[in-house]
């Protein structure tokens, strides 16, 4: 079948002024052929000047991440014909949220920089353990998903928060952080969580679920972020808007069952910043949108909710104790 590849090309080094442009190539694609094979064919037969990264061709090296029909994918494990069936064409652009070197080759230095920032290796506790730490199946499973990362950058390429905030630590480095915070041998989890709780850290995530959806290896960075946040709150690192947002949600559910928006705003922002919300609140009120302040009746059966919370809190405390004994 003849298929059209439309590729966004850009060569910033050549003169610098020329903007990116789209070049189309027609190639013959057979059943089962990958987008990478298509690109190799174009490079071999039609246009040797087309630049793209590749190596293993089997979704292990993480070199060929790019934007295919709008979403981050590995070219080597994306087949051409199903994409054609869905979109009618193959539109390829460089991985988003990264600076382009040439055509589909992007600068990965920001990716590595973010990874370096989270100290991507185990650090021992101050007092060295006197015997080996036994890793149970459960312990290993806790960080399993995050170990599947091949550092292709698909998650960062599709991250909605990174698109706005270049300095955001972003999902790849956060999944890597969980790899160590969640490891029973790690000696500096709290210090790590402290650092991740600062500006541009883990509370910048907008929960758009793109990272988890478009990771080709099932790393589930969003779940890693949720676990990091859970551990941070548990460790008492709550002096930031993100953590306050979370604890005010819990308070609200335990107190009345449903979300008390006014109380949440107040608890998350604090007194002074809540004052800043007053003009906006007036405008909301003109349209009847101001949340009722603290006047909620609790839902029917709130006792059930409180019993469940209480029981789970007991469980959680035990789990924590068990983890800490290990260290």
């Amino acid at each position, binding site marked *: 079948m003849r298929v059209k590849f439309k590729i966004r090309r850009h060569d910033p080094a050549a003169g610098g002024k020329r903007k990116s442009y789209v070049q189309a190539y027609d190639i013959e694609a057979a059943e089962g052929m990958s987008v990478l094979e298509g690109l190799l064919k174009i490079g071999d037969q039609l246009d040797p000047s087309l630049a793209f990264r590749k190596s293993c061709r089997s979704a292990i090296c993480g070199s060929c991440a790019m934007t295919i029909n709008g979403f981050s994918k590995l070219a080597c494990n994306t087949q051409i014909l199903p994409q054609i069936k869905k979109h009618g064409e193959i539109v390829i652009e460089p991985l988003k949220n990264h600076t382009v070197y040439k055509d589909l080759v992007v600068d990965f230095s920001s990716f590595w920089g973010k990874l370096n920032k989270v100290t991507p290796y185990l650090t021992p506790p101050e007092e060295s353990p006197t015997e080996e730490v036994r890793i149970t199946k459960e312990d290993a499973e806790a960080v399993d998903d995050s170990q599947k990362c091949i550092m292709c950058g698909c998650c960062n390429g599709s991250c909605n928060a990174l698109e706005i905030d270049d300095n955001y630590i972003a999902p790849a480095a956060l999944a890597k952080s969980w790899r160590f915070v969640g490891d029973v041998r790690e000696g500096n989890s709290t210090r790590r969580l402290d650092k991740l709780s600062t500006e541009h850290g883990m509370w910048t995530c907008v*929960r758009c*679920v*793109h990272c988890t959806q478009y990771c080709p290896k099932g790393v589930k960075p969003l779940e890693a972020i949720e676990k990091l946040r859970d551990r941070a*709150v548990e460790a008492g690192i709550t002096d930031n808007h993100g953590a306050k947002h979370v604890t005010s*949600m819990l308070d609200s559910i335990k107190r009345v069952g*449903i979300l008390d928006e006014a109380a949440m705003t107040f608890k*998350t922002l604090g007194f002074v910043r809540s004052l800043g919300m007053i003009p906006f609140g007036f405008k909301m009120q003109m349209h009847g949108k101001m949340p009722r302040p603290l006047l909620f009746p609790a839902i*029917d059966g709130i006792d059930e909710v409180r019993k469940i919370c209480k029981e789970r809190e007991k469980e959680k405390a035990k789990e924590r104790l068990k983890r800490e004994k290990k260290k």
Partner: protein
Amino acid sequence: MALKYAYYPGCASKEITKESDRSTRKLAKALGIKLHDMPKATCCGAGLLTDYDKQLTLAINARIFAQAEEMGMDILTICSTCLMVMNTVNHELRNTPGQLERTNKLLAKAGLHYSGKVEIKQLLWVLNDDYGLKKLKEKVVNPLTRLKVAPFYGCHSLRPSDALGFDDPEKPVSLENTIRAIGAEPVDYSGKTKCCGFQIDLVNEDLAVDMTGKRLLDAKGETFVSRIDDINIKGADCMVTPCPLCHVNLDSYQEIAEKRLSRKIVLPVFHLSQLVGLAIGLKEKDLGLTRNMVSPESIL
């Protein structure tokens, strides 16, 4: 047999986006869909509770499902975040070995039990699948033929797709098809499956609002968008979203986005129930259009 659901509007629609709840009730009544209230339902946790403790989120949501089970109905929600949280929980309970039993142990403390059989659907899904767009089309008395409508899916009505299992997150069609069924024209634009920013409104307002502004300008065809055929993009007259949280940002925060971007946007944003309601002849008052902060008056 008439469609009936355990109705879970979500916390936002009980308070700051009441118009979404009210218009959904009117719409359901007009279409003959029965909505049964769930007075015992809690908040789903909106993802924030998952940040505190996943196991608790599973139990709190399973408690909601147990109520629906008692009522003998599936759940209909009008919030994408509730939809995502609840389906993610249900997926976990059904597919992770031992998880349903573990969660039921917590529920047992409150004398409850969940079998794992309840389905959680969004109004958009119900209109497309259960009710049917063909039937909806027959109900249209006021086809919105003049309107170019930007469908805004946002994140949680599509992802994570393994848990949701509805529509295609890379090429969704359900909102477009609904827009066509009520006589209007859907407009394609790059940001329709991206984030509105709502989740971090209170944590990092600037970032959230930048996101909101970007989505709105995309829909109006006023930004450079990376889709290759962007020259063909027509600006939308209005936007429609199945999610009240997206609505908060796209509508209520629109003026703040305008200030940050130092430019006018003025794009009316409808709740799905409002736009469909208009087409089937419901009164503007019943749809609560005056509660929308960007007035849709000029395009109606």
